[in-house]
């Protein structure tokens, strides 16, 4: 039965989903009251004529439907539009230092959380029911219920204000001249430490739980029981047999859990003044920078949908039991 047909079908679904998404987003953003110029009025008494000129310049005077068609047409040619605030093509706004900052923060923190979560999860699952497991479990449940921004503030209060161990804001020491790349990286990591720890700690809770639960079910599977019966050393069984098989769900979930990841990024970046995509989203919403908002959402959704698609394909390819339905 056709893998090819399955791929084609999923591909078409993917395209439809993306199209549907950008349509919904476009109109939701247009629902927001005000235009990019509304904010200006509080700071400067902007001349009404100048305002109308700008509105025309940005094509906001056209009916929404026409704007939509123009948007779709531009999108098909790879043009995401021009930011109202930055006056740059949206792609340039997004693919910038901000994106790198966010990626660095998210990858390091989530990688760390995953790594620690896995180790702790495996370890706790193996000692299931003991006091240690119980303690780890309770801790992870507690972590699950801490608001991420609050933890960030508390970290700042303790480590940045009280003990001055880490900087309060920013990604590097401003205007410092770095001797070499290592010095720069060191400075960058020093700035990243607190936001990274914040996300790691919060994330650790759920990663640990997932890993622990998968491990528990994996250890009940026949091949583990067989391995135990064969008298293999415990370490070998845990790490070579059980953990490897339990790893899959956590990796998959991390990819699919983009929504939470982005939300966490918005709050964390805002607490630590980390100049990244999360802040960009927040500001774009406040400034009514529709093109940037659409661009960022487009990027996120395409990444997630394509990731989903690839994961499904991988599964379909790897696991003969998956039916292409």
């Amino acid at each position, binding site marked *: 039965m056709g893998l090819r047909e399955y791929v084609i079908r999923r591909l078409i679904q993917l395209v439809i989903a993306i199209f549907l998404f950008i349509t919904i987003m476009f109109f939701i953003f247009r*629902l*927001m*009251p*005000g*235009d990019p110029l*509304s*904010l*200006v*009025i*509080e*700071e*400067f*008494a*902007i*001349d*009404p*004529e*100048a*305002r109308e*000129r*700008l509105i025309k310049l940005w094509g906001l005077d056209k009916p929404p439907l026409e704007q939509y068609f123009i948007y779709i047409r531009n999108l098909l040619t790879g043009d995401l539009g021009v930011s109202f*605030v*930055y*006056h*740059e093509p949206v792609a*340039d706004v997004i693919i*910038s*230092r*901000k994106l790198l*900052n966010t990626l660095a923060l998210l990858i390091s923190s989530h990688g760390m959380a995953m790594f620690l979560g896995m180790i702790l999860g495996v370890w706790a699952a193996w000692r299931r029911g003991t006091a240690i497991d119980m303690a780890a479990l309770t801790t992870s449940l507690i972590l699950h219920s801490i608001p991420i921004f609050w933890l960030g503030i508390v970290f700042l209060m303790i480590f*940045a*204000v009280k003990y*001055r161990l880490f900087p*309060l*804001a*920013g*990604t*590097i020491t*401003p*205007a410092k001249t770095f001797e070499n790349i290592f010095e720069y990286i060191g400075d960058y990591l020093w700035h990243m430490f607190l936001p990274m720890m914040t996300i790691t700690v919060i994330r650790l809770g759920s990663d640990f739980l997932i890993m622990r639960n998968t491990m528990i079910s994996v250890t009940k599977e026949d091949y583990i029981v067989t391995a135990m019966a064969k008298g293999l050393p415990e370490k070998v069984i845990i790490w070579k047999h059980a953990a490897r098989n339990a790893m899959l769900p956590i990796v998959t979930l991390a990819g699919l859990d983009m929504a939470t990841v982005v939300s966490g990024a918005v709050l964390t970046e805002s*607490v630590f*003044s980390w*100049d990244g995509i999360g*802040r960009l989203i927040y500001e774009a919403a406040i400034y*009514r920078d529709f093109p940037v908002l659409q661009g960022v959402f487009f990027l996120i959704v395409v990444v997630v949908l394509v990731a989903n698609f690839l994961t499904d394909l991988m599964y379909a390819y790897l696991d003969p039991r998956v039916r292409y339905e």
Partner: protein
Amino acid sequence: MFTINNRSRSRFIALILTASIILSLTMAFTPQAQMEKPIKLSFEVMMPEYDPVRIRAGELLAEYAKQLGIEIKVRPVDLNYEITKVRDEHDFDLYILGFSARNMPFYISDHIKSANDRPGGNNMEGIRNATLDQLAEMLDSTVDRQKQIEILWKIQEILADIVPWVGIYTRYLTQVWRVEWQGFHKEYWGYASPMTWRNAHIPGKEGGVFRVILADDLKSENVHLEGSIYEDMVWDALYDTLVFLDDSYSPQPWLAERFEVSSDGKVWTFYLVKNATFHDGKPITARDVKFTFDYIKNNDIPGYSNIARYYVKSEVIDDYTVRIYLNTPYAWFLYDLADVPIIPEHVWKDVAWNTSVAPKIGSGPFKWSRRVEGEYVELVKYENYWRSDMPKVDKLVFRIIRNFNAALLAMEAGEADFYVYYIPVGAVDRVKNNPELHLNLERGFTFYYLGFNMRKPPLDDVWLRRAFAYLLPKDEVVKGPLQGLGEPVTWYISPYFGDFNNPNVPEKFPWIASTSANVEKAREMLAMSDKYEYRDIDDDGILEAIPKKMERQPQPREKPKTETPMQTMTETEKMMVETKTIVRTQVVTKVETVTETVVQGPSTTDIALPVVIAVIVTAALTYIFARRRS
């Protein structure tokens, strides 16, 4: 009871659901008949949700209004939403907004013209006053300062009389610097001024780095693109202007060592300093000045709309003399010039005005060095600056810290030298008690006010608006949420603008002068109304406004301190008024007929979502009910 008839029951439920939805929809869209019936004094006051002080101000107002029998719902909203409702849809009762009115004397005409009482126009309160229209028209074209003052004084009196809005409080500009630094100068934004960048230094120390905290990143690297006030701080250091505004807010020569104006006020001649150069070493000549203005005019650059509007052409007399022609006498021209950076023709002639990363060859005391997006902007001293005594430091670093807590901590830690932005009240003591920091409070011109929708009865009653003016606990707002970092507003044009402020206003119009809530006075105001009778007819503790018959004229003694504006006018003004009234009235009546039919119902956004959801749910339910396996 026991016999369950599924079909009839489901139909019944579906029927009820549909009926209730239709009913609620009709109720939502039915215009409320307002004209003849008593109107309940129940209002909504909008303010931007992000500002705790304005929210508290609204809550305090509501508290006192309740004592009088006026119900006020405090509704913090998104700023954009508020502006859309207020300016574009005129769908509001009361609103609180801030006005960073650095150009208030110039722009006030924009806010009071009847013609601007249109969606999107700046006359948000719906002021329809022929006299104000005349005065505004005159103000726009009057050059003579004395005359301007005369007109502005009159405008202030009329505004204080009809009360389309009431000022509540001004917030001080808060500025912090490390005590060792000196040489700061005041301008629009207090000490974050061009002259500060040129002059700041540590006495007895050569060079050094001046580190300024920017509350936001540059949105683009182009001096012509509208950014935030923080952006202007960077460009002020990078570019020179023909004139600058001194500490007392009056224009002084700068790149133009002197200037003249023709007797009709339309032709300005500027004599440039001769040793000024751009950062690439080329001299700054009259041609560059001409190019700068032509460039603005030809591109219609939004940030300089006044220049574009009044500028006709320039004439290069010689390398260092340029003559600028305006289409009408324009008194505020010099003030505007203080904002126009002189750009080099040889660099900009082929550059589009709105490129996001434009050349940064400036004319100012600092050269562009580098910028790390989201982190900092670094400028270095331009060694060949025409003022050899400036700048005093080697480097000017703008460090971007958006979080004010972090910014203040950076100041404390000695990581920055100068901070102009919001200081949370909780942190004021901490700054004050720090011997290394100096906290400067500057009155400034930003003020926050309560605006009325005068189109909407009973807010069309001047006595009700005056009552509101009496209900505003301005002092409590200042003492409470503002923690003394500001002062009550009792004027229509800030004393900051010197002579433009009419000092008689508080004395003549006690409701504007009132700084504490005075419920009794407010009640008196209501009693004096000739338009409505304010009485609680349904005994719910909230007053109703009952329209009075038109025959009942107000008794003359009820308006003791106000005169008809016409009587106070000079003869020339009267003439102008008469000639223009015909045109005006036509416009006004036309617009009025439109606005009168505006129906006050709930806004579409308020009901759209619940309705959509309700419809979907009902549809889904009815679907389940109706469906049988086929």
